[in-house]
């Protein structure tokens, strides 16, 4: 590819010094992810995928190797600089949604803008948060609190929050882990739609069904990449939803 990669990992290592035994969670991973890609990082528990995810998300620094995020060498930054990178370059979507309770959807989406290095006027914050909510189809529920929203809607709010600072990378950690299969497909539909608009997405998951919605699958085992391939027979959310409905219809007719 001709453009510069969004993520350029070179020989990344991560060693945890816990207790007497050093845990070598990531053992030399090199990976380039380019703008517009939609990558699933897969692996069983203990494969190092969460550790890799934390490092890609600038929540943690590698013990060795270099990591360029959008051309910035993240592996050498201090805490505050990492916070700034997270704020400007990365949008997080978590398995447990991680929304602030008793805070409206709109305010949840506005939150990352509070920590922008450049002050954003409050009406502009509101506008951008609304745009972001519209993008995930929740514009009309902006004043709802998380406990008034379904799991799928909460995850959409989280996605809107991740997008509000126009990050270079959307990072999703088991985004469908807490959702039923239909809602999971809907959320994957949202991701596919965003990816179609050019947003780079990296998603950690252990479900193959979910990974099939992405374009590229990276499989880890024992801290190393064992498979890195393009997804064949990629699932398309719209089609999958339609099939699901037909199946439900069939069940109804049969009964």
């Amino acid at each position, binding site marked *: 590819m001709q453009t510069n990669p969004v993520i350029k990992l070179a020989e990344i290592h991560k060693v945890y010094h816990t207790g007497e035994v050093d845990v070598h969670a990531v053992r030399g991973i090199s990976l380039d992810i380019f703008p517009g890609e939609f990558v699933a990082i897969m692996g069983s528990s203990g494969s190092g995928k969460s550790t890799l995810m934390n490092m890609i998300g600038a929540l943690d620094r590698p013990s060795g190797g270099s990591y360029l995020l959008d051309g910035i060498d993240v592996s050498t930054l201090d805490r*505050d600089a990492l916070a700034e990178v997270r*704020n400007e370059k990365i949008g997080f979507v978590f398995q447990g949604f991680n929304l602030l309770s008793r805070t409206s959807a709109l305010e949840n989406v506005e939150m990352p803008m*509070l920590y922008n290095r450049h002050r954003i006027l409050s009406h502009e914050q509101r506008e951008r948060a609304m745009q972001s909510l519209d993008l995930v189809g929740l514009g009309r529920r902006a004043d709802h609190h998380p406990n008034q929203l379904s799991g799928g809607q909460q995850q959409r709010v989280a996605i809107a929050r991740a997008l509000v600072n126009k990050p270079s990378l959307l990072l999703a950690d088991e985004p469908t882990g807490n959702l039923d299969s239909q809602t999971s497909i809907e959320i994957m539909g949202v991701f596919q739609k965003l990816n179609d608009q050019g947003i780079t997405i990296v998603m950690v998951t252990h479900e193959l069904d979910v990974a099939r919605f992405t374009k590229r699958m990276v499989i880890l085992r024992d801290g190393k990449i064992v498979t890195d391939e393009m997804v064949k027979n990629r699932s398309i959310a719209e089609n999958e939803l339609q099939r699901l409905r037909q199946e439900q219809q069939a069940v109804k007719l049969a009964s």
Partner: protein
Amino acid sequence: MRILASLKIAGRALLRNKMRSLLTMLGIIIGVGAVIGSVSLTSGATKQVEDQVSSMGSSVITVFSGNFTSGAMCGGWGSAPTLTVGDAEAIAGLKDVVAVSPEVRDRAQVLANGLNWNTQVMGESPEYPHIRNWGVSRGAMFSDQDIRSLAKTAVVGQTVVDELFPNENPIGQTIRIRNLPFLVVGVLAPKGFNLFGQDQDDAIVVPYSSHMHRITTRTFLNDILVEASSDKTIANVQDEITQLLLVRHHSKEQDFTVRSQLELMQAVTATSRAMGFLLAGVAAVSLVVGGIGIMNIMLVSVTERTREIGIRMAVGARAADILVQFLIEAVTLSAIGGAIGIAGGVGFSQIVAYFKDMPTVTPFFWIAIAFVSSAIIGIISGFYPAWKASKLDPIDALHYE
């Protein structure tokens, strides 16, 4: 991060646990309330004293005969008859002296109207009401002519009027002092009790010359009242009087004492200042106790909201942002507590003032002190929990259950 946004977050966090926030504030509320309440009451009392002192005339100097501390024998006021009318006249000639009244005092049985009453009979000059800041409510003061002619004229206090002329106009009536008939020419305005609990209205004022030659046969004065032109000239006038009397009395030992109302006032304000320090000590202790309560609750709050801290860090909050957020929360808690405490203290003192009939004054200075120190307590007690929150690792915080 913006202060306004932080305040909003803090307000929401505090409202989430209304009862807990209120109980946390209670320490500060009670501490500040107690301080403001007691300061109001003591300042009210102090002001009452100051008003009384200045009602005697703040630029008045009193020259007593005898010296409080001369030699080994401490005589006391008026123990040695040394002051004469000549001394008073000489003092009247000094610069910056506005008025002089030679004073002689005696108790005497007074008869009038078929009634009798034992009261203080004072010999004074016509300037006496002016010096003492004491109006003549009916009739008039006797004149300089009365002094020269040893006139048997008298100005009476309200208590004397109440005792001897219960239902009559005393002006023009005759009262007998030690069997000498005196004509009542004026009534002094009611003045009430003085600092020492004496009824100042229980007195009769006559010309000092009449007092010294007719009622008694004295040649010496109890004291001399002198009014200086202003507060600023008092010290100077005091010195001049001392110099003048030393020369006139041809003595090296000072056989008189010069005191001003200003000195009395200074003694009073020194007392109130000492009281102020005491209250400040009490305030400091109660605020520290309140601060410990805030710190305790903030530590609980940080633990409870670990995940929230993790989320905020994940979306880009820096350590300083988290620190400021929790600091503002602690300060909001303590400042609101301080404000409620101030309102409560003022309200309490107003209630006491209403039911106990005591004047209360809440100095703005103390309100400011109370508010600022409760805010500072918030910063101090909030700092450790806030610092702890800001040092959390975002990954651990995100996965905190």
